[in-house]
């Protein structure tokens, strides 16, 4: 199949009913904008709901638990979750790219996007793990009272192991993205 045949094959492909959407601007642009913004907003919704649930549970602990250190730990976890929530809102706001960036050649656009994602994954521990770490530590210390030597510290692995797994998964994804960036760098050279 020569160039002409191949290009003709591609260009004469049947166009599905997606074509009707091509007149979206005149008819549905308001709805499109709402739908688009809804998509952006819902991306972090799940994480936000989790943070709110954690805040509610530990907010209750903060008030109801008898052990002083556990109450302090619960309060710190609530504060840490609030920081995470703020970060999610802040990052959601950053997810809408500046209009100028949309018109960049793909190699520049795609590289910038990959670098942004890599940095976000590398720093995820900073804004999703670190904020609740002091609270969890104090909470466990409170659980270990009155005699820390008798406390089954293995219990802490229930929290620590998932944290480490999430961290490792994110770092692994960041590593894969870096490989992709290296390939792009070679294309630029």
């Amino acid at each position, binding site marked *: *199949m020569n*160039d002409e045949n*191949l*290009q003709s*094959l*591609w*260009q004469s*492909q049947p*166009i*599905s*009913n*997606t*074509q009707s*959407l*091509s007149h*979206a*601007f*005149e008819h549905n*642009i*308001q709805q*499109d*904008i709402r*739908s*688009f913004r809804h998509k952006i907003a819902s991306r972090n919704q799940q994480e936000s709901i989790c943070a709110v649930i954690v805040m509610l549970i530990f907010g209750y602990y903060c008030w109801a638990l008898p052990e002083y250190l556990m109450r302090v730990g619960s309060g710190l976890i609530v504060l840490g979750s609030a920081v995470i929530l703020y970060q999610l809102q802040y990052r959601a706001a950053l997810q809408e790219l500046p*209009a*100028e960036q*949309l*018109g*960049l*050649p*793909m*190699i*520049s*656009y*795609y590289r910038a*996007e990959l670098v942004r994602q890599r940095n976000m994954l590398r720093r995820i521990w900073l804004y999703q793990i670190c904020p609740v770490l002091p609270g969890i530590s104090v909470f466990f210390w409170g659980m270990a009272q009155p005699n820390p030597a008798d406390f089954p510290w293995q219990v802490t692995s229930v929290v620590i192991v998932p944290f480490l797994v999430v961290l490792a998964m994110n770092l692994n994804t960041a590593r*894969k993205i870096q490989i*992709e960036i290296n*390939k*792009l760098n070679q*294309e*630029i050279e």
Partner: protein
Amino acid sequence: MKPQNLNLPQDLLYQQALAAHESELIRFVAGYERDPAKRADLLQEIHFAIWRSMAVFKEQCSLRTWVYRVAHNVGATHVQRNMRPAEQNHADLAALALHIDESTDVVLADRNLDLARVMQFIHSLGPLDREVMLLYLEGIDAATSSDITGLSVRNIATKIHRIKHLLSNMFKSGVNHHE
């Protein structure tokens, strides 16, 4: 952000772009989303991005180049966001050469099957190779493709040469298999 007046320069440029490049946009979408049910969403996203980008379009390049850039950038982001873990590593052109030689088991009977195989090939490519291939299929020359992708003309020419070689092998294998 909501457009109150649909006759702003931004809106007029968008309408102009749409009138001139509507068909290409729909074909690009097919190249970036294999599930026909999800193509409407991607097309919608591209439309919105093009409309949004028209606010900052100051004839830095031709309208076509600008529209193609926006469409491909949104397409690439869409592919990246929606990839399953198993699809995270796109095949490069060298790896695909081996793959095509070894695993051609689809009989090419008519144009639809040819198109399906081309589509399957496109969907196996990484964003840059995919963009180059889609531009080649639209009949865009290497210089314009270079302007759209940011790759050098030489790099584009090399990629197109390799893509054509792979496609040629793919179709030959299909024909041999058919015989």
